[in-house]
């Protein structure tokens, strides 16, 4: 695909939507919905300066650490839980229990146990974002093709080798689906974690803007989140293209690209 075509796909719909938004806000705007121009102007003013260093970068660091931990933990636990049936029976209800508890309620508990610091925020990110990776890994591991499984067994491929050569690759398409989900949820949790015991950070700033009715500024913060989301997704897609080359090849070639 040519670069131009790719850019067209990438920017086509967003541009269309912005034009629609612009047209809709043309005839007088609501206080809570700024015009595209106003937003663009604010965006630059708000995020180009000092905020970039004091709010944006620390948040991104925490997000990064949180996401890496999320993915490593999610895949690790997912493999364990997915391949050991009694462990699955043992842990499933309790995991489901934690999954259903809203982070805003869970956060005070973390504050109690860990304190008001970066570790707490990272833990909040992990506690919310781990589920898609975990669940998808569990399901992916459970669904390994029987014939492949038999093949590995007869060639004496056990333990770590089995993990490396069979389970992980076989589950990787589903794991990647989970990872992609977790990235954006991690971003959301980053915002939520900064709503408590915080005085800086991207999420904190957005919420502060919202509370002080700095509406265009708030939307600009949301736009930053969206852009980070796209960036994360592009990165994960890049990794996916490497890791799942065989998978996409298999699907595409047979589908006759």
């Amino acid at each position, binding site marked *: 695909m040519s670069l131009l075509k790719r850019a067209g*796909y*990438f920017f*086509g*719909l*967003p541009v269309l*939507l912005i034009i629609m938004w612009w047209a809709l806000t043309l005839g007088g705007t*609501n206080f*809570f919905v700024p015009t595209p121009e106003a937003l663009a102007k604010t965006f630059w003013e708000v995020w180009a300066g000092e905020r970039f260093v004091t709010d944006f970068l620390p948040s991104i660091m925490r997000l990064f650490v949180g996401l890496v931990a999320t993915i490593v933990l999610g895949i690790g636990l997912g493999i364990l839980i997915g391949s050991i*049936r*009694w462990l699955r*029976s*043992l*842990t*499933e*209800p*309790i995991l*489901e*229990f934690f999954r*259903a*508890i*809203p*982070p*805003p*309620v869970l956060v005070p508990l973390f504050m*109690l*146990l860990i304190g008001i610091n970066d570790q707490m925020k990272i833990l909040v990110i992990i506690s919310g974002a781990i*589920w*898609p990776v975990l*669940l*998808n890994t569990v*399901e992916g591991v*459970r*669904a390994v093709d*029987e014939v492949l499984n038999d093949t590995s067994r007869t060639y004496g491929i056990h333990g770590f080798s089995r993990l490396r050569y069979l389970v992980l690759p076989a589950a990787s*398409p*589903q794991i*990647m*689906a989970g990872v992609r*989900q977790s990235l*954006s949820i991690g971003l*959301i949790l980053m*915002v*939520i974690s900064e709503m408590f015991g915080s005085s800086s950070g991207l999420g904190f700033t*957005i*919420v502060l803007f*919202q509370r002080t009715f700095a*509406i265009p500024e*708030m939307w600009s*913060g*949301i736009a930053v*989140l*969206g852009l980070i*989301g*796209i960036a*994360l*997704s592009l990165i994960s897609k890049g990794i996916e293209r490497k890791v799942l080359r065989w998978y996409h090849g*298999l*699907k595409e070639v*047979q*589908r006759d690209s």
Partner: protein
Amino acid sequence: MSSTNSRMRNQRVAGPALGLAGILLFLLVWEVVARAGIVDQRFLPPASEVLVTFFGNLIEPGFYQAVGETMLAWAIGLAISTVAAVVIGLIIGSSSFLSKATYSTIEFLRPIPSVALIPLAVLLFGVRIESSLMLIIYASFWQVLLQVLYGVADVDPVAENTAKSYGLGPLARARYVIWPTVLPYLMTGLRLASAVALILAITAELIIVSRGLGYQIALSQSGGAISEMYALVLATGLIGVIINLAMRFIERKTLSWHSSIRSEVVA
């Protein structure tokens, strides 16, 4: 024959028993942490105390009303977002043009926290259930959508070619080939989304509409009724567990042919 049979029966019994053991273990750890003073009991009351409050709640009609209100918002929100995500996911997933054209927009919208949309929701729908529905739907929609998109991508080309060669049109293929392939992914998406929807239902009750479990939690928080608050959180978690049990049940019924379920039964 008898040996395999009894083994299978054992496992059937062992599953729930183990799950219960897991929960008991967790309660025990909680109790110890609180009793041993690792955390101040005023901030984290021991499990036993919370359980007493919890069971006390179970005989209050008001509790069930709150649960009912929360579950209503949850069910409506989840239903709408699932149906929308499945339909849109199947459409987008089956067309490479649409997948490419919507990619950037989807990735932009996905990480926007529902919490940040509260002013917009209130503005659009007022302080009513529709606002919290909007938040629930917004948050859980993406969970399902992404899973459906991956599921569609996972359709076996040989199976799809077979369907094509027998003249199955796009709709029939969606129904007979794509849908069953997507189903395992969808089930995962559904399980993710149902928890997210529950979380958002409660969060929305905390912040916008003052009803349901979330409001009760907020009330006990602002009133300093700590063990009441933890009892409500416990209830929330248990609802999550129950929802998951239901999902598992549906999954076992609908995916009996899938290798993940098959391996549980046979081997």
